[in-house]
């Protein structure tokens, strides 16, 4: 709790310095958040080049509008709101993301990622998350699975399970009700499991 408070205090100081035209403060804000924002965008849009460009656009928009930032929400949720909105708009324009076939990405059970995935989905899984993280192919399967979710569900799942936001922060970023966060997250996780099971079959 103290750490979060300190992070927020740092943000407030940096934002105030940005208001005064301090370019060093702008750079510090970019360096502080670029990896987290890039990761969230990448998991939602699933394309590294597009994610890089959207991250860049996000920071340009943040800097251009930082004069209008009133501090009613934290800078953290405000910045992620810009990032997620830009990304979701981009996804809506590029509908090809939602139409890729499941069959094309089926993984053989006897392959390394197939075995890992089967282990993950088994009822008595004791797989170390570090092992999953080290397998690039498995990670790619997960990213492709996320792409099968609709945009709204994907955004909630990514913000919760990848960025680690709490429900209130997600509601703030997406400007939705807390109940909507709960239902979208529930449906998203359920669908994701179904997708992964379908990939294994």
């Amino acid at each position, binding site marked *: 709790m103290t750490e979060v408070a300190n992070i927020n205090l740092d943000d407030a100081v940096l934002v105030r310095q940005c208001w005064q035209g301090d370019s060093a403060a702008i750079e510090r804000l970019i360096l502080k958040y670029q*990896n987290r924002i890039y990761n969230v965008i990448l998991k939602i849009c699933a394309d590294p080049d597009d994610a890089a460009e959207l991250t860049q656009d996000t920071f340009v928009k943040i800097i*251009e509008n930082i004069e209008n930032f009133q501090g009613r929400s934290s800078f953290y949720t405000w910045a992620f709101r810009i990032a997620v909105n830009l990304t979701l708009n981009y996804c809506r324009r590029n509908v090809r993301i939602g139409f890729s076939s499941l069959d094309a990405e089926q993984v053989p059970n006897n392959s390394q990622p197939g075995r890992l995935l089967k282990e993950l989905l088994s009822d008595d899984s004791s797989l170390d998350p570090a092992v999953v993280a080290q397998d690039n192919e498995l990670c790619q399967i997960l990213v492709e699975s*996320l792409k099968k979710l609709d945009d709204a569900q994907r955004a909630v799942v990514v913000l919760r399970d*990848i960025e680690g936001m709490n429900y209130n922060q997600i509601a703030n970023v997406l400007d939705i009700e807390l109940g909507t966060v709960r239902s979208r997250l529930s449906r998203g996780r359920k669908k994701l499991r179904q997708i992964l099971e379908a990939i294994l079959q």
Partner: protein
Amino acid sequence: MKEIPNLDELLNSFIDGELAPRQHTEVQRLLAHDEKIAQRLDELQQCKMFLSSMPVVEAPPQILENVKASLARRTLLGEEPSAFDEQIGARHLLGRKLFAAAAMLGLVAVLAAVVYSIVAPTIPQGPIAAERKSMPATIDLAEPAPVIVVAAQFSGRLELQTNTLPAVVGFINRAIEENVPSDEWIASDQKEIREPHSLICSSESFNLLLARLDDIWSKLDSATLFVDTEVFGRKVVVEAVTADQIAGIVNQDDSTRRIEVARDFAVLNNIAEHLPGREILTAIDNTTVGLIIPPKPVLTSNHKTTTKVPSRTGADKNIHLTITVTDSK
């Protein structure tokens, strides 16, 4: 397993630590008594772990430089003005609007002042003095001590033209003799009628003279008053001046005000000269020539009609006027 509405939502919230303490205890009780619910919780936890285990990818290193370059390009090309620029623009626009509004108000005020100076009636000095006199003594005490204003000297020339020169000159001479003390005027020789009459007299004498001269005004073809100003050689010329107008000009206490009144009369007379239909008015006026005009009352007693006006001190003699009469033929 009992049918529980929104079980997945409840379990997901349990996993994420987003339940109130009472709900958390309730879910723990359910998990302890129902294996299927516990199994469902495991599935959801796996899914969460599954996503959480994904590695964090580092952002491309050129993002910072690209952001700087993008901002610089936008600023240079003016593609998208920054919010700060928009605020400056809004302030400029507001300032210009306020300036325009102030200018409009100023213009309206000046116009109103001009219109008022033209339309508003001149407040006569006499009644004001009378009102002040009638004020209660207590108020008089509160006011500052009255200032005695010495009337400023009037200096000018009156040029008259007539086609009945001898009669008019004779009338003027008589009028001067009757109304102005002898030491206050230098009469022209009756024979040399072109010589001017030079008056240095008091306003009281002058007003008497003017009242008398008013009787011959209808016999004049033109009457022009030249009012000297403070600038040497510059005069205000009032053409077609009447005796009343001369009185109005001369009786002003202040020389500035006197010149203003003279100018006003000059403008008015000039406008009246050029008014359409003036010929008709003149024709109408001419019809009165044949009408019977009752003679003015004449004193029939043994008293002389001319009374010698006592001489005054030099300080009272503030009217310097030269009267010239010429033949209009």
